[in-house]
């Protein structure tokens, strides 16, 4: 029975937790510990002999290299380890080699068939289809199936740059010269014959037992270049062989494919006779380069092998570059920067002597990124051709035909022909970003560079999708892109994309740093089905990296009315553009977007995108799917929806006013030295910032003496008024007593005095208590605490019997210090962060809303959560600081789910105060005393050693649980957001799984004052004694401040039953308190006077054992929460004691 409970507990903390050796649950220790699982860092201990033995020359070199070349030998070793992980093993290579041998044999045995017309497919018996979209249908020419002239392995595999995962081995099959005719390069005749040839091969292979699955795909999404994918039989399909069909080398003359020549006749493509003479049609550069690309793979392989043989680190360098590209999703799809291009880039750098042959892989990667960051291939193309023949096109000619130019060794082919300028800009942006943080000693460079994946949704501040890709057809029609369509053989997505991108770039202009788009993925389909249509592609996603200051500007100011550019402006903005007169007297064209509150203004880019696509690209609003709406859960406000920025500002302004008035108070015995806010609302991070309220007096009882309001029994609980903590430091003086109790009394006297003065001089309603002073001001409640800077010191002092004055740290002093010194400091620091990054507060609010909704707000406290979010802004590498609440929230979830707290401290460099030396110091200190430090260790400049914000919570189990739930939430959310078919409902991740808990206490909504803030707000709401009018006055009776039955109940429960159970609740309108029994408390314990709380006794023989008195405890839940508790639901079936 006991083991069963244990396992359920383990389920709760979700199994594979590495931190089992923490002391919290010693029951787990009983498990036999496997030494190999024991992954704990212990400081190294080298013997004296080892450290001081004379070094050999080699060792000396190695040490010196590590010291000078890399930051530390760590990075070097990390890269070596990474390479070991991605490089193919010997066993895998053997598998691949033997499979290729079999396939080659099989392919050579292809039977020869009689010659037929190209359009005649009768020879293709069986279910195998041709991987080609026949558009238009008619083709001239003859074709027959015959064994290939030669079969070679090409590409990355023979070069040794092939890496895991998705191992792809390229096999070039040469179509015999007899099958082709010299004029075949025209009008898609050659591509069609190639597709037929592949179909023939597929048909032959499908009957062979040597091959597992057969599928078609196309090379980098280019439908003119289909490939056949083979996997070995059996389950082990860890690699695929890509069969390319190629013409014999030199079959076509390369100068036929000059980017300015036409090889697809308009007449043939449209079927309409025109009077134009042959060969003077519009140039077809993309068609040309796709045919030419087939001619050259062997030459490229030869070239790269030659380069590789000279530079020993070539393969490793390229492998690293490929990993880097893969993490940024740049290496796959149409117009990608593929591994082939990566090799070519390194080869280019070697041939131009920017990299020397004896550099290491690390330097290769660094120099490549440096080159990419500093060179703009959209303007200054590069060429590998050493001495191009005269017929080869010039770079200028390439630039006029393509957006990005990187010419191959032959001088005829642009290898980046499909790449859009935006894709290259993204590559460049990534490279320069990597270069920025590479040298930063405070960043874990290796991790950011090569280990962190950067999916678009977590990278871009705003993401939207084009769902109905068919709509792009009308874009082509509207913009008259027939020539491009012909060039791209009817691929309307590729044809329309450059236009859409330039339109958006123009419209968004200064508002964005970068516009990125997803690369259409390589489709794969079975050999027995037809090639999928273009519209079957997944939606096209666009990402915006916003310029925070300008992105939410509601005014787009154009040129003056008489400026010639005004025409252009009007054309772009159409009917939205209107003439406006500004305060400075200028009259210009301008566009005004809607947006009153910050949360509406954030949607301006969204409005622009929708509008422009509708007007210029004929894409209806319904086809554009903006990803967002996450901030719905923190939205308030009835008329104008807001996400709290405006309310926070009101609070901060009221506080500023109050602090000014405090400073100017006359008649205090000591002067005030500082007034500091210490509340999340004063740093813009309160989930629901307090709003000024006006109280309805008739709703309350009245306390006679102090004229204060008191909640009435039988009525719904009054609205909760948050007290906003303000710390008020008093001047130090010899008059302060040197005794803890006396200080406490003096503070109370100050509270009384302040209350009197505030009442007299400003007519604020005040209430003085020994511990604080509540001030009711303009509908907000401030809680002022007087502090004396030497009080913690006094609390620490004690005198030993010998009369020695000693300082001993204690809990009380620490708490006081946190409340009066560290909290105000954190508040002002984070307030500063908000000024720098406008969406910081919104991200905090979302993050804390999620934590609260998942019932974690007692484990990850507000301050901890704010620090976690701050770390996302202060150390965004490999990203840029979040520019929207949504992306910030997603990264917060990712941080929570992936950070390895066991072995790493999270260092939050507030105000940029920490230096590299501090970082090392913190890390070393952390490593040395890991066991005694909090599970979640967060270091800040003011707190390098103790992690004060996480000292109390979370525990190992709770942290593990938080991580699991965060990972799951992130997965669900990202899938939902990126899947065009699903409805976007962020609330899914805000509903906690309640079946993991043992008892649920359902609360009476009437007595839950924050009910309207619930994740799923109820339809009915109760009157809570506040009137709707917003103009709140100072003075009058003191309203009910800080009265929340739910908090009071939770406090009582925890104090009474904290040893037996954990209590969880969503502080923002949660109507359920979830209870989890502590398994340890349910084991029979011997009768001890200190351990009998809420337990019954059971006598066996001469021994008395105690067990929790569950029935009575459940009864107590009801008794203690009378009128608040609706029902107590005990899930007995889950219990096992």
């Amino acid at each position: 029975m006991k083991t069963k409970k244990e396992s359920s507990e383990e389920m709760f903390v979700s199994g594979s937790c590495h931190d089992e050796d923490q002391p919290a649950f010693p029951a787990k220790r009983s498990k036999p510990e496997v030494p190999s699982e024991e992954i704990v860092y212990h400081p190294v201990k080298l013997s004296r002999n080892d450290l001081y033995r004379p070094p050999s020359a080699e060792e000396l070199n190695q040490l010196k290299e590590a010291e000078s070349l890399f930051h530390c030998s760590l990075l070097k070793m990390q890269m070596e380890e990474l390479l070991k992980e991605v490089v193919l093993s010997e066993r895998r290579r053997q598998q691949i080699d033997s499979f290729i041998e079999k396939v080659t044999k099989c392919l050579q045995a292809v039977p020869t068939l009689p010659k037929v017309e190209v359009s005649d497919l009768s020879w293709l018996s069986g279910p195998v289809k041709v991987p080609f979209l026949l558009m238009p249908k008619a083709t001239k020419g003859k074709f027959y199936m015959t064994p290939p002239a030669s079969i070679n392995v090409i590409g990355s595999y023979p070069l040794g740059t092939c890496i895991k995962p998705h191992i792809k081995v390229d096999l070039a099959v040469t179509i015999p010269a007899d099958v082709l005719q010299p004029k075949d390069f025209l009008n898609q005749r050659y591509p069609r014959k190639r597709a037929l040839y592949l179909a023939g091969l597929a048909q032959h292979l499908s009957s062979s037992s040597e091959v597992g699955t057969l599928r078609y795909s196309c090379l980098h999404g280019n439908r003119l270049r289909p490939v056949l994918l083979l996997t070995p039989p059996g389950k082990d399909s860890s690699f695929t062989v890509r069969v390319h069909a190629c013409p014999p080398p030199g079959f076509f003359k390369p100068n036929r494919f000059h980017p300015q020549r036409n090889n697809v006749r308009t007449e043939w493509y449209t079927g309409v006779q025109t009077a134009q003479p042959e060969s003077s049609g519009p140039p077809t550069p993309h068609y040309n380069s796709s045919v030419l690309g087939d001619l050259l793979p062997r030459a490229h392989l030869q070239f790269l092998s030659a380069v590789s043989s000279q530079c020993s680190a070539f393969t490793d360098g390229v492998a690293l570059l490929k990993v880097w590209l893969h993490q940024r999703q740049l290496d796959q799809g149409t117009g990608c920067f593929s591994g082939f291009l990566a090799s070519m880039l390194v080869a280019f750098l070697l041939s131009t002597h920017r990299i020397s042959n004896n550099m290491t892989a690390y330097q290769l990667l660094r120099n490549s990124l440096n080159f990419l960051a500093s060179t703009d291939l959209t303007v200054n193309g590069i060429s590998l051709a050493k001495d191009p023949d005269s017929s080869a096109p010039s770079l200028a000619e390439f630039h006029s035909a393509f957006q990005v130019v990187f010419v191959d060794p032959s001088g005829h082919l642009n290898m980046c022909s499909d790449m859009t300028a935006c894709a290259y800009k993204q590559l460049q942006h990534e490279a320069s970003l990597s270069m920025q943080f590479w040298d930063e000693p405070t960043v874990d460079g290796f991790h950011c560079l090569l280990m962190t994946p950067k999916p678009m949704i977590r990278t871009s501040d705003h993401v939207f999708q084009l769902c109905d890709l068919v709509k792009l057809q009308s874009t082509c029609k509207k913009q008259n892109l027939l020539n491009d369509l012909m060039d791209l053989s009817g691929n309307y997505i590729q044809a329309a994309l450059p236009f859409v991108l330039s339109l958006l770039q123009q419209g968004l202009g200064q508002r964005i740093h970068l516009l990125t788009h997803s690369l259409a993925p390589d489709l794969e389909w079975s050999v027995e089905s037809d090639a999928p249509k273009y519209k079957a592609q997944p939606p096209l996603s666009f990402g915006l990296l916003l310029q925070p200051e300008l992105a939410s500007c509601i005014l787009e100011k154009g040129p003056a009315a008489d400026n010639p550019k005004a025409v252009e402006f009007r054309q772009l903005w159409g009917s939205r553009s209107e003439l406006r007169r500004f305060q400075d007297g200028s009259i210009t064209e301008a566009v005004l977007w809607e947006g009153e509150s910050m949360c509406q203004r954030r949607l301006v880019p969204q409005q622009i995108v929708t509008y422009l696509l509708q007007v210029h690209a004929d894409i209806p609003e319904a086809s554009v799917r903006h990803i967002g709406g996450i901030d719905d859960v923190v939205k308030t406000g009835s008329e104008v929806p807001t996400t709290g920025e405006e309310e926070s500002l009101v609070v901060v302004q009221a506080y500023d006013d109050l602090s000014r008035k405090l400073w100017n108070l006359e008649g205090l015995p000591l002067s005030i030295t500082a007034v500091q806010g210490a509340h999340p609302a004063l740093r813009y991070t309160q989930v629901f910032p307090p709003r000024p309220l006006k109280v309805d007096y008739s709703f309350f009882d009245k306390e006679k003496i102090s004229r204060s309001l008191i909640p009435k029994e039988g009525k719904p609980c009054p609205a909760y008024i948050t007290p906003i903590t303000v710390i008020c430091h008093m001047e130090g003086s010899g008059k302060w007593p040197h005794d803890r109790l006396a200080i406490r009394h003096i503070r109370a006297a100050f509270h009384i005095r302040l209350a009197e003065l505030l009442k007299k001089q400003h007519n604020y309603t005040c209430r003085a208590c020994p511990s604080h002073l509540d001030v009711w001001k303009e509908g907000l409640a401030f809680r002022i605490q007087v502090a004396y800077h030497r009080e913690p010191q006094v609390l620490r002092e004690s005198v030993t019997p010998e009369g020695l004055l000693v300082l001993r740290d204690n809990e009380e002093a620490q708490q006081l210090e946190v409340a009066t010194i560290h909290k105000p400091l954190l508040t002002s620091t984070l307030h500063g962060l908000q000024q720098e990054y406008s969406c910081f507060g919104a991200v905090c609010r979302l993050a804390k809303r999620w934590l609260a909704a998942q019932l974690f707000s007692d484990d990850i406290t507000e301050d901890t959560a704010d620090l976690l979010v701050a770390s996302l802004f202060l150390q965004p590498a490999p990203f840029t600081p979040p520019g929207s609440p949504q992306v910030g929230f997603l990264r917060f979830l990712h941080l929570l789910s992936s950070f390895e707290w066991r072995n790493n401290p999270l260092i939050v460099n507030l105000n940029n105060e920490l230096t590299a030396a501090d970082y090392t110091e913190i890390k070393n200190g952390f490593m040395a005393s890991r066991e005694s430090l909090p599970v979640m260790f967060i270091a800040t400049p003011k707190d390098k050693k103790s992690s004060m914000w996480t000292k109390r919570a979370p525990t190992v189990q709770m942290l593990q649980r938080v991580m699991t739930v965060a990972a799951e939430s992130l997965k669900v959310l990202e899938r939902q957001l990126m899947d065009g078919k699903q409805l976007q409902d962020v609330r899914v991740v805000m509903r906690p799984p309640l079946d993991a808990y043992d008892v649920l206490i359902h609360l009476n909504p009437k007595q839950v004052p924050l009910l309207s803030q619930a994740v799923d707000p109820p339809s009915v709401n109760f009157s809570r004694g506040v009137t709707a009018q917003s103009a709140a006055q100072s003075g009058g009776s003191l309203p009910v401040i800080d009265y929340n039955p739910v908090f009071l109940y939770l406090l009582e429960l925890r104090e009474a039953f904290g040893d037996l159970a954990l209590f969880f609740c969503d502080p923002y309108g949660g109507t359920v308190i979830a209870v989890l029994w502590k398994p340890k408390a349910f084991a029979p314990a011997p009768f001890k006077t200190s351990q009998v709380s809420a337990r019954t006794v059971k006598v066996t023989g001469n021994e008395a054992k105690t067990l929790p008195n569950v029935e009575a405890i459940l009864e107590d839940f009801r008794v203690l929460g009378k009128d608040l508790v609706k029902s107590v639901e005990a899930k007995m079936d889950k219990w096992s004691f």
Partner: protein
Amino acid sequence: MAPSKAKHASGQPWVIPGGFSVLSLQFSSGSAARHCLYVKEHKVRTEKSSHRPLDRTLFLLNIPPYCSEVVVKELFSQFGGIESVELRDHPGSSQESGPKISKLFRPAEKQGFKVGYIVFKNSSSLQAVKSYPFDAPLVVSTEQRPVKTGVQKWIQQYSESFIQPEKLQQKVDNFMQSYDERKEKEAEQKKEEAERQQEEEEGWVKVTRGHKGAKARPHSEAANEKTLQKEKRKKRRKELLNFYTWQHRNTQKEHIAELRKKFEEDKQKIALLRAQRKFKPY
């Protein structure tokens, strides 16, 4: 409770090993579940305080949070007259040290399960309690004296938390006055002592060593520490570095050892990460 019913005839007291008698307690007469109170006569070898006379004091365990001192007094008055009731978080001797301070200035009390000490007027009451039958529960809240819990209690608490500024001021003044008096008295005492030291018998003044010096160096831990540090620094300043060849050689050796150590550390970190499969990029 189920086992107890099976074992004990009705109307009998139940005494468990350890000498505790078990009483049952329920919140109201309608409650289905009961708590167990464990009672025993108060017996400690060294009871210093006179508040708990050994023969008349009852020691109570497991008092639910809704039972205040008043309620406990009510519940047990049926066994005889009660002199005082004391509820505490933990068992232990009472510590009534320091000046008496108002409730307002004491840290908030915990609202958990408590232990109690009831002092009866007569020692015979103890026996009455111990022989009280187990199956006749004590009822906390009856119609005559309802105990407020939940929302009612919180509202009451809220309204009781108000205190008139004048009263508070009064309390502060009182305390500070007594504090000042105490300080004065202490100061006087010290002065007297000093004087006494100075004028020892027969008008001779005793010269103690370095009275001034003692004043200059305060008698505290931090000061001791500081002096030690200063001494150390002085010593270090006198040393010469890299002066002799062997010193220079040693420095170089240390450097290499440092590099080696770092290398080993890094190697270990890597091994650790590798064991956790931290190098799989995707």
